[in-house]
Every structure is written in C-alpha cells, then in structure tokens.
C-alpha cells in the first residue's frame, strides 16, 4: 500500500461515521425545520414570534452575564494561582477544577442543595434574617449553575495561558522603560487576549446550549434549550423544535467560530511590599471563596447521601442505606454507562487516532475543512444533535431501542476531543520527519504507524481517552433525548432520581457518580501535569 492510499484509508472510518451520524442527521434536521406551517419562513419564527424572541433574548442575556461573571472571577483567581506559590496551592487548584466533569443535571442538583427549599443559603438566611431566601428554581439559580459549570474551564485556560507567557516579554518591556501598569496593558493582557477570547466563547456557547441544569432546576425557566425540549417532547412540534435547534446551533457555532475581541479586566503588578501583601490576601480570599462555592455543594451532597435524615441533619445518624437502595434500583444504569463509555472509547480510538494522523500529514484546505466539520459537535448543543439523530434514525426500531443508539450520539460528541487531543501532540512532535525516518529504514506505512506514530502520540491518546470516558459517563444532554426506559445511563438515572426520589437517595446516587468520576479526573490532571513537566 502506498503512503497516499494508507492516509486515505486512515480517513475512511472518520468520513463514514461523520457522514452517517452527523452530516446526514443535521441535513435532515434542517429539512424538518422547514416542514412547519410556515415552511422555510419557520426559521424566522425564532426572531419574529414574540414568545420565541423573548426566550432567545433571555437566553442570550443569561449567557452573556454568565460569560462576563466567569471571566472576571476566573481571571482574578487564575492569574493569582499561576503567579504565586504557597502551601496548599495544588489542593486549591484541585478544588477549583474538579467540577470539570460534572454534567449539567448534577450541577442543577448541587444548586438546589445550595439555594433550594432545603438549601444551605435558605437555612443561613432564615437564621440571620428570619426570612428564607430560595432562588434555585429561578433564572438566578440557572445563572449560578452556569457559573459553576464555566469557572473551572475558564480558570484552567487562563492559568495555562499565563504559564505559557514568556517572562522575557515582560522583562524586555521593562528594559525599555515600561512601568508595571504599562507592562500589563501593553504586553501581558494582549498576550492573554486569545485565551480570554477562547475561554469566553466556550463559556458563552455552553451557557447558550446547556440543558441539563435547566432541566433539573425547573421546566419553566424560559431559555432556548428548554423551549426546544418542550416543543419536541410535550407539544410534538417537530418542525419548530428542529428550526429552533438549528438557530441555537448556528448562534453557538458562530460565537465559537468568529471570536470577536473581548475586553479583559486589567491586572496590576505589585508596587510595594505592603500593598503586595494586601493584594495577595485579597486575591487569596477571593479564590478561597470561589473554591467554597464549588466545593460546598458537592460536600453537602455527599453528606446528604450518607445521612439518615437530611432534614434533621447529620445528628440523625450516618447510614449506607441510601447508597444500598440506589445500588438496588440503579445498578443497571451504572453498568450500561460503563459499557457505553468503553464502547465509545473503542470507537473514538479506532476512528480518531488514524484520522488525526491523516489530517496532520495531509494538511491543506481539505484537511482543515474536514477538521472543522468533525469538530462542529463541540459547538453545536447536544440537544440539536440528539434531535437530528432522532429525526433521522428514530424509525429504525431495533436500533432506536438499543444502547447502540446512545453510543452513536456519544461517539459523535466525544470524537472531536480525541481528535484534538491527538492532533495537539502531533503538532508538538515532528511526525513527518519521524515517519520519513522510519520509511528510510524500510518500514511500510502501516508498520510506521504502529511502531512510530502511535507510540509517540501516546500522551495525547491517553489524555483523549480519559476525556472521552469522563465525558461519556457524564453525558446527559444527548442521552436524555436518545434513551428509552430500557436504556438508561447513569446521568439519566440521576435526573430520574432528582425528580422522583427523596433527597437522600438522590444524594447517594450523586455520591456514587462522584466516586466513579473523580479518579478519572485525578488521572486526567496527572497526565496533564506530566505533559507540562516533560
């Protein structure tokens, strides 16, 4: 086999899966969007129909507010953590980043524990003011949920960007006479600009399309994903649901694709020791507060899961009965989740690793377009993809009813992560020359791929694998739409228990989810840390 045909063969599975399970369904979704009473004009309803327009504005305002708040919080804490070394720093970082893999449903539940009817904020305010403040089920609860979701991501991006900043740049600016403020304004912030823009865009797009959190908090919060969900499942209004999904997808994609320049909060360098100390303490306290916001609800959930009666508090006794009950009720969802997660991993490895290699060595316009198309699911809300799959393959009864249907959704959703992760490694090692080196020694294209390419891509493969498994285990947005009563995964079961079980059972179930997901997260951090040191 010549090298050229080997590279094409590497791309074949990717082309097949993307066409069958992403492009075709998305095309179908677009067609269905135009089948309503207004035909193609149905696409304009999203801005013309007053109710839809109000929802759209609501969603955009909420997403923008989330983005802005996240950026400010994450910039302060991220810069602080990257620029200072102090005891307990790594624990603080771990606390700030562990919610990375929590699906929206879980975050919704954590917000309920924080600000719901039995929430800790309600209890505190009752003690302090005599009045119970409950806002989990309103747009404020959703805002808090999105913050919870976005902060870890954005902090990580900003920390990485600050770390990569060449100290020589700052030193050069100072050698040219720039004062501390000018250095920040002219050198540091512009250098961080791309990171601000990238993480801001991600925060905005996820807030636009997130469904799980809103679903857990209340079905009557007026945001676009909820509207689509009710139109599709309750009103059986397929055309509207489809056109709204396309609209939502387009907005999210456009935000991620055409990242405008975003302003960023200025950050000053220390001037003298006294002020330095004060700033340090202020930043540390702020960061601790952020960490508390992320950790306290999770701790509440864990304690609720092992408390005999949460209403009466931990004094009612510690018990494992809720965990046992969950195991009895939901063990099959856990097993199915693992089955799907590892099947997803297998599929993304087989499809993604050869494709990443092929896209890297081929280069050129076609590769760039392919990469763009394949990574689209990162930008399009899971809900739109799920609807597209349902509208295309919903008629194939056997397939629709099997767990394979969920698997397909997970593969489409996680493939970009594997692809990106492996391609990132290829970008740092000189794959082309290694390949030529092995070829000069007589190895065939296949042999080269196995002996040289794959072993050297290992860090990316491992990181991508951990991410795929973690994402698949926690995936809710797609899975909720694709599941059947017989194919429930863990997050689906979680949503179930949040809706119908007592708080302790729901918490115990969440606890089981934490136990499964946290080791994966720790492994992911370790791999990332090892990469950074290497």
């Amino acid at each position, binding site marked *: 086999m010549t090298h050229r045909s080997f590279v094409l063969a590497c791309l074949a599975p990717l082309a097949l899966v993307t066409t069958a399970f992403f492009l075709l369904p998305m095309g179908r979704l677009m067609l269905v969007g135009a089948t309503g009473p207004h035909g193609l004009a149905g696409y304009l309803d999203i801005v013309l129909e007053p109710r839809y327009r109000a929802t759209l504005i609501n969603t955009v305002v909420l997403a923008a507010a989330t983005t802005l708040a996240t950026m400010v919080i994450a910039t302060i804490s991220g810069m602080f953590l990257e620029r200072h070394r102090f005891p307990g720093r790594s624990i603080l970082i771990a606390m700030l980043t562990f919610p990375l893999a929590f699906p929206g449903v879980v975050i919704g539940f954590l917000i309920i524990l924080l600000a719901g009817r039995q929430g800790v904020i309600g209890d505190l305010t009752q003690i302090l003011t005599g009045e119970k403040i409950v806002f989990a089920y309103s747009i404020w609860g959703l805002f808090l949920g999105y913050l919870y979701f976005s902060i870890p991501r954005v902090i990580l991006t900003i920390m990485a960007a600050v770390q990569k900043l060449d100290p020589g740049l700052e030193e050069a600016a100072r050698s040219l006479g720039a004062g501390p403020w000018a250095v920040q304004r002219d050198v540091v912030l512009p250098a961080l600009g791309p990171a601000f823009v990238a993480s801001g865009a991600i925060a905005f797009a996820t807030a636009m399309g997130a469904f799980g959190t809103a679903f857990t908090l209340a079905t009557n919060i007026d945001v676009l994903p909820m509207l689509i969900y009710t139109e599709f499942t309750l009103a059986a209004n397929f055309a509207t649901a489809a056109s709204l999904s396309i609209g939502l997808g387009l907005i999210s994609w456009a935000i991620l694709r055409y990242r405008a320049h975003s302003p960023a909060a200025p950050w000053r360098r220390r001037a003298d020791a006294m002020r330095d100390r004060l700033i340090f303490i202020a930043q540390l306290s702020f960061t601790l507060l952020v960490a508390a916001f992320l950790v306290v609800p999770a701790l509440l959930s864990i304690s609720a899961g092992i408390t005999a009666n949460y209403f009466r508090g931990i004094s009612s006794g510690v018990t494992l009965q809720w965990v046992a009950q969950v195991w009895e009720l939901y063990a099959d969802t856990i097993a199915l989740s693992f089955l799907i997660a590892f099947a997803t991993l297998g599929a993304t490895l087989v499809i993604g690793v050869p494709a990443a290699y092929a896209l890297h060595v081929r280069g050129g316009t076609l590769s760039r377009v392919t990469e763009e198309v394949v990574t689209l699911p990162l930008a399009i809300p899971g809900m739109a993809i799920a609807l597209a799959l349902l509208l295309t393959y919903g008629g194939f009864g056997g397939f629709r009813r099997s767990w394979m249907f969920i698997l397909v959704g997970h593969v489409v959703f996680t493939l970009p992560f594997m692809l990106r992760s492996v391609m990132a490694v290829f970008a740092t*090692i000189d794959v082309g020359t290694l390949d030529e080196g092995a070829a*000069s020694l*007589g*190895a065939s294209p296949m042999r080269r791929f196995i002996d040289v390419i794959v072993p050297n891509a290992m860090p990316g493969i491992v990181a991508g694998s951990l991410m795929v498994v973690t994402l698949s285990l926690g995936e809710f947005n797609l899975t909720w739409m694709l599941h059947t009563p017989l194919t429930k995964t863990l997050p689906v079961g979680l949503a179930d228990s949040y809706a119908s079980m007592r708080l302790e059972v729901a918490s115990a179930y969440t606890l089981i989810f934490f136990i499964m997901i946290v080791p994966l997260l720790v492994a992911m951090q370790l791999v990332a840390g090892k990469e950074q040191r290497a």
Partner: protein
Amino acid sequence: MTMDLGHGVAVRIEACGKTFADGTRALEPATLDIARGETLVLLGPSGCGKTTMLRIIAGLETPDSGGRVLFDGRDVASEPIERRNVGMVFQSYALFPNMSVADNIGYGLKIRGVSKADRAARVAELVRLTNIEGLENRRIDQLSGGQRQRVALARAVAIRPAVLLLDEPLTALDAALRERLRGELDRLLRSLGITTIYVTHDQAEAMALGDRIVVMSKGMITQVGTPRDVYLRPESRFVAEFIGAANIVEAELRDGRLLLPGGILAVADAGSRPGAVAMIRPETISLTAPEAAMLSGHVDGVSFVGDRQRVIVTGAAAKPLTVDASNSAVVRTGERVGLTISPEAIWLLSDPPSNDVRPEG
C-alpha cells in the same frame, strides 16, 4: 577498522527537476553521476535545491515527469523510500523517542526480519564504530546533540544501505563539536567506502568531506568538481565568492596585465579585453614595501584573527582588497603598502563585469 559493508551502488540522476504544487521551481532539470563508493557533497545556500535533490534520490520526492533516478543502472523512480534501501540521516535526526538507542539502531534490521541475535551483534558493532558505547539503553531525550548525531548515523548505516544520504547532519551542533564530528565522520565514511551523498551549506564541511563537490544556486548546478577545483578554479563569480574568501577584481586586461588604479598585475593569460574579471584569494597576496611592488595601496584596517591578520587595502583596485598577512607582520592603518601576487594565483573568470565599477578618486 575497515569492515566489509559493500560499497553501495553507483547513482545517476537524469533530467530530474522539481516543481512544487504551488508552482515553485525548486530544482531545474539536472543530471549527475555519482560513482560507487564516492562521497559527493551538494553545497549551496538555503533554497538552492540541494535538499530537494537529496530527497529525490531518497524517494521522498518524485521528480517532475521525464526525470529518472538510477541505482546501478536500475530505474528506482517507482519505488518509495522504504524499498530503496537507502540510509538517511536527517537534519533533526528523526530518532524515535519511543525507542532506546539500541532499538533505534536496530529498527531497520528488525523491519528486514533479521534475527534478534544477529541484530544485537550488528548493533554492538555500530555502537563501537560510532563511539557510543554505554548509551545503548538510554532514551533519546537523555542524549546530547553529538550523541544523537552518532545514533542517527549508526541507525542509517546499520541496514548496509545502497546509498548513504545525509541532510545537513552537523548543522544542529555547536561550532567546536561540529568540527570534531566532521573529522570522525570523514574517517567513518572513508572506512565504510559506501556511496554517500551529503548536503550542507557549510563550505568548510564540503571541502573536508567531499571527493567531489556540487555547487548549487537557485535550483541549478553551477559547478561540479573536486574541492581543489572549486576552490582554485571556480567557474563563476558565485562559486568563487561562496567558497572561501575571494577578492573579485574588475579591470582592463592589456597584453597579459591587469590595469588597476594602484598599479598593474601580471596574469598568466596573455590576452587583452576591456572588462576582465579576476579572482584573487586573500592568502595569495603578500605585503611588501611599496617601492618593491608594481601594485600598491593604503591599509584601511587590520584585524587580528589569531593564525593570521586580515588586512583591508584600498586604492590598489577599484574596490578594497582583502589580504591575509602573517600574524607576526607589523601592519599599521594608513600606511602605504606594496602588493605582490604571482600570476598563477590570479584566476580569470568568464563572468561579464558588473556595471557598478566606480574608479576611485
């Protein structure tokens, strides 16, 4: 230390040009013969097409249609690199980070199905030959630049290649190490006696290693010859200036004498023409008392470089002349000096004179 490694093949490239997809002409159609066992150096500035030519021989690039690559008369154009049995040392070495030093060296043999024991023996032999004993189990990232270079060479030679191809193998190293490895490489290549094609932009490296040098410029071969040929008898001004330091003197030639602003110079050519272009190497000019020479000028600057002094003399020719004087000579800036050059040391080039000749006032 001579070993029977075979002497490789004779290589012929025939009308090989290369135009890239974007329309860039990297190499004009060129024909070149490399004898069995010869070390041929492709020398030129970056972008001259030397690496493209090497990659065509390797099988990493296909020549434009009409071009052929022959190994011992056999056309190998249709064979990809993995079937050409070439040993290649890359500029970045391309050592596999996922394998140890020994595994890297033995990889080509493993591909060829050589048994484990034979492989180990051969690896040991090469480790000895390239002076990297004790490093066999190291990882690649634990090696210094010089050690990597040796491993890359050992790996390329291990497969007993038909041709050894080296793409700027010393460029990534610092100057002192480069010089030392150049000596080692020369001894190794001589002892192997294998057909070798060596790409470099460093003329000193080319002179030290090549049986013949191919000087290239702008995608074309400008001269092929022994190091002595290209240094002493360059065929063009480009070759004269690219290899070593050269004074290019443009002047009228009348009856075997060059008429210069500061006097006259006798040359070996008895002809006459208005615009002769001559090359004079700095080390062939001796400084004398002004009245003892037929050509004189003023010392404009002296720099002491250790083994000699580089003296700039103005007023002798249209442009300042560079003269290498012994490091013990007493030369002062501003003083008038005579210049003596033997007629045989003045090499007349066929290039036309440039237009920017300005007589000094």
